[in-house]
């Protein structure tokens, strides 16, 4: 028999459910269904949508490319360096994104510590699409690395050891044994990183600015539209909500799977 929670618990639990649910419900309620098409096909909306998809997918690809080796390093290390790097990796999660944007400017802006060297080479990241991708990479990387590192630490290392004993190189073991066995974690980490990159606002507007077609992503377009055309802003917000829901559905099996295995234990 199930242990039913008492009424006061249900009443308390209803409060956060309403706080979280009401804004989403209100957003859909206020959606101007009649001119949905107009709002979605305006030049600003189309370029923001396209730019958001290109930059968030690029940032996610970079997260996978560079995050996988980083997670591997973090999962094997135990020293001070590992702990420092892991703390650095966590920082963008707790840092307000605007602060992240300021830090990016000080590092990669054209007068920044690194940026002035890039400027000499004729590369300016601020105010560029590449700058948007960098800002998204900065805020999204931790989600990928943490997800993959946790999986690597929990992984059954027996297969890898067998492969190693049979003479496979560490690279070979990693690509043909380790990566396939943690594939679900890589996928989940990539989806989380992508969702974070898609919703990025503060670091982007601070570091890359806001220009239609070049750096004005979907969240920036929503912010701009709120001043001139709130109805269109609601439509673009709904697009972001739909994408977020799609991410949750995509991850559902994985998260529920984790829950089930916890229960069985």
């Amino acid at each position: 028999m199930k242990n039913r929670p008492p009424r006061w618990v249900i009443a308390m639990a209803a409060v956060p459910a309403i706080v979280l649910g009401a804004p989403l419900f209100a957003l859909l309620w206020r959606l101007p269904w009649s001119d949905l098409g107009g709002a979605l096909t305006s030049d600003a909306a189309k370029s923001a949508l396209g730019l958001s998809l290109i930059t968030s997918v690029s940032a996610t690809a970079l997260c996978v490319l560079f995050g996988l080796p980083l997670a591997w390093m973090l999962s094997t290390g135990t020293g001070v360096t590992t702990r420092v790097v892991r703390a650095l990796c966590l920082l963008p999660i707790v840092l307000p994104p605007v602060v992240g944007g300021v830090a990016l400017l000080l590092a990669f802006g054209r007068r920044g510590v690194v940026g002035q060297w890039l400027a000499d080479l004729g590369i300016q990241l601020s105010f560029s699409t590449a700058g948007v991708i960098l800002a998204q990479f900065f805020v999204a990387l931790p989600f990928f690395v943490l997800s993959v590192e946790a999986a690597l630490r929990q992984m059954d290392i027996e297969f890898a050891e067998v492969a190693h004993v049979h003479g496979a190189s560490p690279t070979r073991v990693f690509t043909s044994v380790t990566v396939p066995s943690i594939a679900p974690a890589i996928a989940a980490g990539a989806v989380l990183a992508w969702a974070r990159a898609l919703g990025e606002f503060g670091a982007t507007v601070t570091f890359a600015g806001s220009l239609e077609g070049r750096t004005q992503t979907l969240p920036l377009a929503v912010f701009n539209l709120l001043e001139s055309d709130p109805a269109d802003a609601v439509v673009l917000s709904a697009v972001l909500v739909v994408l977020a829901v799609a991410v949750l559905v995509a991850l559902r099996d994985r998260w529920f799977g984790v829950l089930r295995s916890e229960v069985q234990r």
Partner: protein
Amino acid sequence: MGIVGCGGSSASVVDVLAASSYTDVADELETLLEDELGIDIRFSFGSSGTFLEQLNQGAPAAVVITANGETMRRLESAELVDASIAMNRNELIIVTADTTIGQSINSLADLAASGDAVTVVCASTAPCGAATDQLLKQAGLTLSPASREPNVRATLTKVILGEADAAIVYRTDAQVRPDLRFVEITDTVDVVGRAASVTGKANGANIIEVLGSAAAAEILADAGFSAP
């Protein structure tokens, strides 16, 4: 003057919603209002464009101060505020960073002609951006800005940090940074800041009266705003 409701109402705070370009004069205006009216005043700041939505949603402001007339007209036609008064004028000017390109800019035409200058201006949705669009249109010039920032302060910041060579901002916002180089714009566009009391709010009319007084005009003039 100085007549306020008796009893409990004197303990409550009266809110004034102001455009972000008034940030630097708010402390002095607040002191003036409190001295004159004997009530507790609290300023909060936002982008003028968002005031309509905020008041519609019941923001507790007794008075609104917008950066331009257009925004106030929208509030008036939505019947959210009573008749407004003109508080001050503000003009667009160019500020440049101490970069080689920045130093070479001496007019709006220079800025438009310079293909290499990294220029930032306000978004069209913000009053300063709408004024910038009007300025370029009447001068028959086009700019290709590197970014259209959400408000005038964000625009100015990009030049202060040296990320941009030049920006078009309000004179009063530029004045908070005397270390920057100013370039005057001939036949510039000015915007008129307006104040109005929110319909049905107590104290609103009294505050407007003080904001229209000579003492308020002096505070605004000291901060670089010109008379309306």
